[in-house]
């Protein structure tokens, strides 16, 4: 389902809440030329870091790669293209893609190197920068539990970008620890409604 050259979004912050099994499978199948949209890239050879070690990545869009020194090294050697986006802008841009908003204004990064060549506009005397939504072909997300419809609940800080990315891709694959019958999740506690989820993969 993930073809060479695909734009993929992967949930997680550090090693909390990333779809370990899906990422391992992606590393094992060796599909390349990927654009990976994620907060960070794990650690060298660990988690998403494996995809870089395997040279499956063409471009990265994210915000923090200092936990994986292989990223700056590959970038400075010209092997990959890296686009840094402030973390809050990154989160909101993914949410925007999921909810049909093509772009939005934010004060973060105004005047800095990361706002270079971006449009700005004043509102009430303050300058804001225009940021585009970030969409992907496929989102790989991790949740704690799903029901058979694909409603998702999360655990602690493993939630992070997962509910946003689940909304922002053409195809969403959710890796979960457990799948329960429809009706057994408390409807008040469902974080990602099943409308956003296409495929469930259970860890065994």
């Amino acid at each position, binding site marked *: 389902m993930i073809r060479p050259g695909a734009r993929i979004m992967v949930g997680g912050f550090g090693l909390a809440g990333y779809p370990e099994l899906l990422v391992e499978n992606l590393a094992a199948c060796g599909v390349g030329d990927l654009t990976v949209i994620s907060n960070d890239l794990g650690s060298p050879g660990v988690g998403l870091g494996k995809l870089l070690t395997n040279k499956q990545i063409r471009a990265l869009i994210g915000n923090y790669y200092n936990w994986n020194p292989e990223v700056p090294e590959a970038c400075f050697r010209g092997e990959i293209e890296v686009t840094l986006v402030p973390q809050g802008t990154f989160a909101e841009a*993914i949410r925007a893609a999921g909810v049909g908003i093509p772009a939005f204004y934010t004060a973060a990064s105004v005047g800095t*190197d*990361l706002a270079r060549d971006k449009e700005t506009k004043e509102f009430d005397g303050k300058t804001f920068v225009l940021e585009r939504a970030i969409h992907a072909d496929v989102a790989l997300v991790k949740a704690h539990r799903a029901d058979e419809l694909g409603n998702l609940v999360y655990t602690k*800080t493993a*939630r*992070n970008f997962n509910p*946003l990315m689940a909304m922002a891709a053409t195809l969403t694959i959710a890796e979960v620890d457990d799948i329960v019958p429809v009706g057994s999740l408390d409807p008040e506690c469902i974080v990602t409604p099943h409308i956003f989820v296409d495929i469930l993969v259970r860890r065994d």
Partner: protein
Amino acid sequence: MQVIVPAEEAKVRIARRVAREFDEQKRSMVINLGVGIPTMVAGYIERHDIYIQAENGMLGVGPLAVGKEVNRQLINAGRQPVTETPGCCYFDSATSFGMIRGGHVDATVIGALQVDQEGSIANWIIPNGRQLGVGGAMDLVSGARQVVVAMQHNTRDGKPKLVKSCTLPITGFCEADMIVTELAVFHLGGSRLVLKEIAPEISLDTLVRLTEAEFIVCANLKTMSV
């Protein structure tokens, strides 16, 4: 180079002073702490109605987790395992930065490579270095209601970090409200740097010599408690 306050003592002093700033406010607060010295601030806060927000999606961060408390799904924004406080809650990253961007977070404490006399902050990258990451720093300095910079007064090789104009890439322009170092406490008032407190070990002349930025001295200058 003369060491006035050894590095470890300096870090503790800075963290304690920032913690006192929050303890003395007579209201409940939500604060966000960056990595390094800012993280240490939590250990010195005495009040129980100051809540720590972590931008990776948690409000009510407790002390670092040890032993059996460690859960890899429960970390702060510096990837350290942490614990929950009563009433703690979790949310996605867009909601988390909505709190920050929306002005709901009372204060952020951040480290810095340089701060200039107009309060512009450089803390995210050294050009041609081996680093590639911005994290939430730009969102935090532009969104939090109060921006407190907690940093050592000079670099390891004795260069000033409080400068006339930042030479490193800027994180946010004119965003700092307060700067705490081991040698002094400054406030930014009307885009001017104002010295409020000075460490007991040094004279005003020494502080001026160690600080590139120009500042004015508050009429009611106090000695920093150490």
